[in-house]
């Protein structure tokens, strides 16, 4: 009798093809996506049919939380001389100098505090607290500007219209406008440089404070961040 031979199959699978696929996927993700920026509060922006994309460089994002806390984030130029880090370092020095000048204080930041600030994406503390904030650890800093943990977080802002004695928000914006980055000024003038980001359910009152301040500073062109919605929704 002939014996039935059961062929033993190897359990090894050739993973080369699988590897090819994953590398392709990886490449795709690396090229198409951008890193999530850490923000103190997550907001859901309203939607619009506008198809103008938010620029990635030369942009100031003003984040307004539903409770009215204001945060600023700054993105520098593509040119590495005016990179985000360099611009933030320059910004904070100018801001502190201007604040000392206007309010007669003597705040001085150390080199390490400046470099910590240069690495921070979004900030929102009063200039007086800035030095103490920059000395905290990463987690403590995040907690400090989180409106759910610290209701007082955010850049102090009011309806001040007297530019000889600007409020802190005006000092920040003015310093950003006057950065050595040559493209920033143009972007702000064209209305591409400033983006206001706020949650759907924020009341107009809170947004109006920011808009009013920008208007007072003659930055009357700016954009509102929205999510895309199709026209025939």
């Amino acid at each position: 009798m002939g014996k039935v031979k059961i062929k033993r199959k190897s359990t090894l699978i050739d993973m080369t093809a699988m590897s090819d696929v994953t590398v392709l996927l990886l490449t795709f993700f690396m090229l198409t996506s951008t890193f999530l920026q850490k923000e103190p509060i997550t907001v859901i922006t309203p939607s619009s049919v506008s198809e103008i994309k938010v620029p990635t460089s030369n942009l100031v994002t003003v984040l307004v939380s539903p409770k009215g806390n204001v945060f600023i984030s700054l993105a520098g130029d593509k040119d590495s001389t005016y990179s985000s880090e360099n611009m933030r370092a320059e910004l904070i020095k100018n801001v502190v100098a201007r604040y000392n000048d206007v309010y007669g204080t003597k705040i001085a930041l150390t080199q390490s505090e400046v470099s910590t600030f240069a690495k921070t994406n979004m900030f929102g503390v009063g200039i007086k607290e800035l030095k103490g904030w920059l000395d905290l650890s990463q987690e403590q800093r995040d907690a400090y500007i989180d409106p759910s943990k610290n209701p007082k977080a955010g850049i102090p802002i009011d309806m001040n219209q007297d530019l000889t004695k600007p409020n802190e928000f005006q000092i920040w914006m003015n310093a950003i406008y006057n950065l050595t980055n040559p493209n920033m000024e143009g972007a702000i003038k064209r209305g591409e440089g400033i983006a206001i980001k706020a949650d759907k359910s924020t009341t107009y009152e809170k947004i109006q404070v920011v808009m009013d301040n920008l208007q007072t500073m003659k930055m009357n062109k700016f954009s509102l961040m929205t999510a895309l919605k199709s026209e025939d929704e």
Partner: protein
Amino acid sequence: MAQIDTGGDSGKGKSHQKKMSIHVDFTPMVDMNMLLITFFMLCTTMIKSQTLQISLPTNEKVEKEQQNKVKQSEAITVILDSDVDAEGVPTKNYLYYYEGMPPVTEEGQIDLALNPMKTEEFLPNEANGAAQGMRKIFQERNKEVVERINKLKAQWKNKELASTEAANDSVYQARAKEIRNDSTLKRPVVIIKATPNASYESLVTALDEMQINSISRYQIDRISHNDSVMMMAVKGIPYGQETAEK
């Protein structure tokens, strides 16, 4: 011979050169890639936000003579308002609007009988293919422009405007701009105002409607005393009570 006898396979006296397998096991490589993909999927975003560009007038006081007066027949004022809950979160949006000048009598009193202010609930702007709510208001008033734009859009979709796609797009953009700014057509001027309680969403929706309905002339303005008095009257709160609250 220069061969070193390793002693192990001395049985046959002949040494086989071992054939190396060219197969490499890619499983760890796949594992690593999968980890990297997971990392990128979690830490990055593919969605890029859109922006709506607006420009506000300057805050400086403008001389009365230099002000551009809007033609009364063209103006429509839209006031956005929302109900808020105990925590100040807007719940329901409303829309108030009136055409032309606010109805102020010679004595400076508000008389709604002169120019009725209408109110409407903030509805989704389209239902069953028909415009409603804010969109209906604007579409009716900007009919001449909207009709022309729609015609143009149909041509653009069928690529009748030019031979190549890029040229088709640019011709469409140029012509659409021409139509929107054509002063021979009846075009409204929209003044958007919002109460402090109005939600940001309703403001963006209103600005968005300007784009959708091809309205080229619109403006965001501060709410005036007359406006709030009128709103109170529409809501049914007598004038005296409102001032007492303030």
